């Protein structure tokens, strides 16, 4: 470890049989948290909201992403755009609360106005009273800063730094694996909930990546989905997680089931898969519904989990399926709540000064190790960039 580095990651990138996990500092140290903010979260495609948060034209939602003020906006063409939520004039926050922009986004300070496309539309009194133009104020150079964004499986991803490969290139492997689910999704507000967790966001990913803990932390799954029914999802530097070969559809009292996604191959009759698209979005896909969990890193030891369930058809989000939807949402909320004590327990455990990152089981912890390796690689890339500057 050189003096300029906040942690030694040399053991983290070793093969799983030799590797150690990320050092404690990556869970409890504010300086490392700041380093990861840039190298892990801003330099990659991170989830910051759901497309259904801004369902209609003109809908806008401010997001504080690790202190970075973002604004999600649904434009006239139906696309979700993301802008820096900061006026180009005096740096005032433009939109403070979620709402609908009927016309333009007006800065509450000096009323510079921006279109839903981010273009600067008016600069009132900028050349003096009643004079709205000035030769030095070039509106075409002063539009809102657009943040690269991409919507996938209902989640709005952003690449703040603008340096990542295009989303479809960066995540081509998972997009290919799950291409059968890349279809219109239907969401109802009864399929959304938020969990507050006292831990670093990465611990939620680490727990989600492996099935090793299922028999102990989710004993209710033992009868329907045993440990041996699971397989690893391991794509180095891309994503990891687990799959199951025994997915059983939820059934209502009258045998009602959710409609399936159309044109799925036979594999999905009984399979389900759960993967984290690095860094911070955890997905689950099934024949009849999917879900996404956006991990909002509130602080080094605070995470907000935003959960949204999606269905395969408009019919499934209608009144006829309400009871089944609520049962489904309750089921997943219970499962995700069962994970909180281990995630928070691991956070506390990382204050143990002798903890060395932990020893992985080569047989069971592969997907978790792949995540550690990816994080370490991002940090090393960031450190190399800093050293070169």
């Amino acid at each position, binding site marked *: 470890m050189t003096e300029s580095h906040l942690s030694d990651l040399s053991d983290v990138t070793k093969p799983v049989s030799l590797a150690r996990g990320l050092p404690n500092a990556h869970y409890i140290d504010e300086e490392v948290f700041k380093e990861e903010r840039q190298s892990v979260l801003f330099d990659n495609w991170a989830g910051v909201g759901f497309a259904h948060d801004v369902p209609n034209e003109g809908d806008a939602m401010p997001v504080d992403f690790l202190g970075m003020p973002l604004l999600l906006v649904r434009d006239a063409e139906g696309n979700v755009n993301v802008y820096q939520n900061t006026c180009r004039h005096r740096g005032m926050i433009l939109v403070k609360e979620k709402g609908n922009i009927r*016309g333009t986004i007006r800065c509450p300070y000096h009323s510079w106005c921006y279109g839903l496309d981010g273009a600067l539309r*008016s600069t*009132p009194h900028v050349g003096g009273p*009643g004079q709205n*133009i000035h030769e030095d104020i070039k509106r075409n150079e002063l539009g809102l800063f657009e943040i690269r964004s991409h919507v996938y499986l209902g989640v709005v991803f952003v690449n703040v730094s603008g340096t990542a490969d295009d989303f479809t290139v960066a995540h081509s492997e998972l997009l290919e694996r799950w291409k059968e689910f890349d279809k219109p999704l239907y969401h109802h507000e009864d399929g959304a909930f938020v969990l507050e967790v006292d831990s670093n966001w990465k611990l939620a990913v680490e727990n989600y990546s492996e099935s090793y803990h299922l028999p102990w932390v989710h004993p209710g799954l033992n009868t329907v989905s045993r440990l041996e029914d699971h397989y690893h999802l391991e794509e180095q530097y891309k994503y990891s997680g687990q799959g199951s070969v025994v997915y059983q559809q939820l059934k209502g009292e009258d045998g009602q089931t959710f409609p399936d996604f159309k044109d799925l191959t036979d594999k999905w009759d009984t399979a389900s898969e759960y993967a984290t698209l690095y860094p911070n979005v955890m997905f689950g896909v099934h024949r009849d519904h999917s879900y996404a969990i956006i991990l909002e890193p509130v602080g080094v030891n605070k995470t907000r989990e935003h959960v949204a369930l999606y269905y395969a058809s408009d019919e499934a989000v209608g009144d006829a399926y309400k009871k089944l939807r609520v049962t489904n949402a309750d089921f997943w909320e219970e499962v995700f709540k069962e994970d909180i004590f281990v995630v928070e327990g691991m956070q506390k455990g990382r204050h143990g000064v002798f903890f060395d990152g932990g020893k992985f089981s080569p047989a069971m912890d592969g997907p978790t190790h792949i995540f550690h390796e990816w994080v370490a690689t991002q940090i090393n890339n960031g450190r190399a960039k800093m050293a070169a500057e």
Partner: protein
Amino acid sequence: MIDYDHLNAQVLAAHDSGDNATLVRIYQKLGNDELANGHELEGAYFLTQAYVYALEGGLPVAKEIHKTLVALGREE
């Protein structure tokens, strides 16, 4: 004669309730009256206020006000 106290109260109430249409109506009338009296600066000032709230509210009248401001060399 204009009752400025009454007008001021109307403007403040419209601001409080986010009533852009009323703000536009008040400011546009003030602006047009000033222009009619040959007071370009005051007229452009009020029309600018009207324009901003028309833009914010997505009100069609924004086009008409914009046209006037452009003709005065005060908007692009």
